[in-house]
C-alpha cells in the first residue's frame, strides 16, 4: 500500500481532471493485446484504488466497453487513456501516466505476458537523449505547451 493524500491527475488537454483521496494499490503494467491497443503502446501502466476514492473534479471521461466485463475511460477531447475497471469490481485503476506525478508509484507486477513484445526487455538499454538535445533551440522557443499543467 502506498500512503496517498490528495493525489491528482487528468488528461493531456485538461478537460478531465480527477482526485484520489485514498490508498493506491497494485501498481502494475499489463502487456495484454487489449491494453497494447487501448494505450497504443507496449503495455499499459495502471494503479488501482477503490471506486469511492476516485473523484472527477473536472469533466467526465467517456467509456469504451473493450470486453463484456471491462470498461475503459478516456478523454473524448484529447484521447488520453484514463481508467480501467471490471464491472463487478469495487476497484478502478487509473493510468499511471495521467497522474500529475507519475513517480509516486512504482509498478510491482507484469501481467498479460502472453502478448509481451520481444523488444520490451531491451527498451531501457536504448541510447537516450533529452528533448533539448533533439530539438534546435529556436524550435524549443516556439514549442509552447498546450498541455494542462500537472496540478489543478
Amino acid at each position, binding site marked *: 500500500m502506498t500512503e496517498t493524500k490528495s493525489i491528482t491527475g487528468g488528461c493531456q488537454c485538461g478537460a478531465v481532471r480527477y482526485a484520489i483521496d485514498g490508498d493506491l494499490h497494485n501498481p502494475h*503494467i499489463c502487456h495484454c493485446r487489449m491494453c497494447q*491497443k487501448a*494505450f497504443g503502446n507496449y503495455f499499459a501502466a495502471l494503479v488501482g484504488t477503490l471506486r469511492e476514492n476516485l473523484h472527477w473534479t473536472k469533466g467526465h471521461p467517456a467509456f*469504451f466497453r473493450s470486453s463484456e466485463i471491462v470498461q475503459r475511460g478516456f478523454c473524448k477531447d*484529447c484521447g488520453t487513456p484514463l481508467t480501467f475497471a471490471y464491472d463487478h469490481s469495487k476497484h478502478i485503476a487509473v493510468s499511471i*501516466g495521467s497522474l500529475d506525478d507519475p513517480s509516486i508509484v512504482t509498478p510491482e507486477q507484469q501481467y498479460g505476458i502472453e502478448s509481451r513484445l520481444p523488444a520490451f526487455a531491451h527498451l531501457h538499454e536504448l541510447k537516450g537523449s533529452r528533448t533539448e538535445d533533439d530539438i534546435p533551440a529556436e524550435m524549443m522557443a516556439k514549442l509552447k505547451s498546450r*498541455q494542462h499543467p500537472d496540478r489543478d
Partner: protein
Amino acid sequence: MVKIPLRAESRTGGCQCGAIRYRIDGPLGRAGICHCRMCQKAFGSFGAALVSVPATALTWARGTPGTFRSSSIVSRGFCAACGTPLFMQEDGDPDYEIAIGTLDDPNAIGAMTEQSGCESKVAWFDGLSSLPSQATADYRSPEDLERLKSLQHPDHDTDHWP
C-alpha cells in the same frame, strides 16, 4: 472501408474499437520511445512508443482521427470513440509518428533505436522487465478469458465492424 489490395510491404493498424483503421504502404522509418512529459500524459503511460511513417504512405482506411494540438507545433491524433492514441505529427514534418501499439502486428517494425525525452523519464522504467510476471491465463478462468477478448477490433482489416 477503403479497399486497396495489400502490397508486399503493407501494414495495417487502428484503434481498439475499430472506428479508425489505417494502412501503411512502404517501409517504416526510425522507431523509438519518448519519455517526455507530453508523451506521458497523452499516452497515460511511461511515455510513447513511436515509429516514423511518411505521410504519403499512410491511408486512413476507416474513419478520421480526432486531433489535439498538444503544443504550438504538434498535433496528436486519437480515436474519439475509444481514446486510443494513434499518432503525433510536428507541423511541416513529412512524417507521422505512429503509436506502435496500434499496429496490428507491433512486432513488424525494425529495431528500436532510441529513447528520447529522458529529462522526464520515470525512475521505475529501467526495472520493468525484471518485475515478476504472469500470463493472463494464470489469473483468469477460461470463461473470463472468453468474455475479456470479445469487443476489441481484430488485428486485421474487416469489411464491417462491429
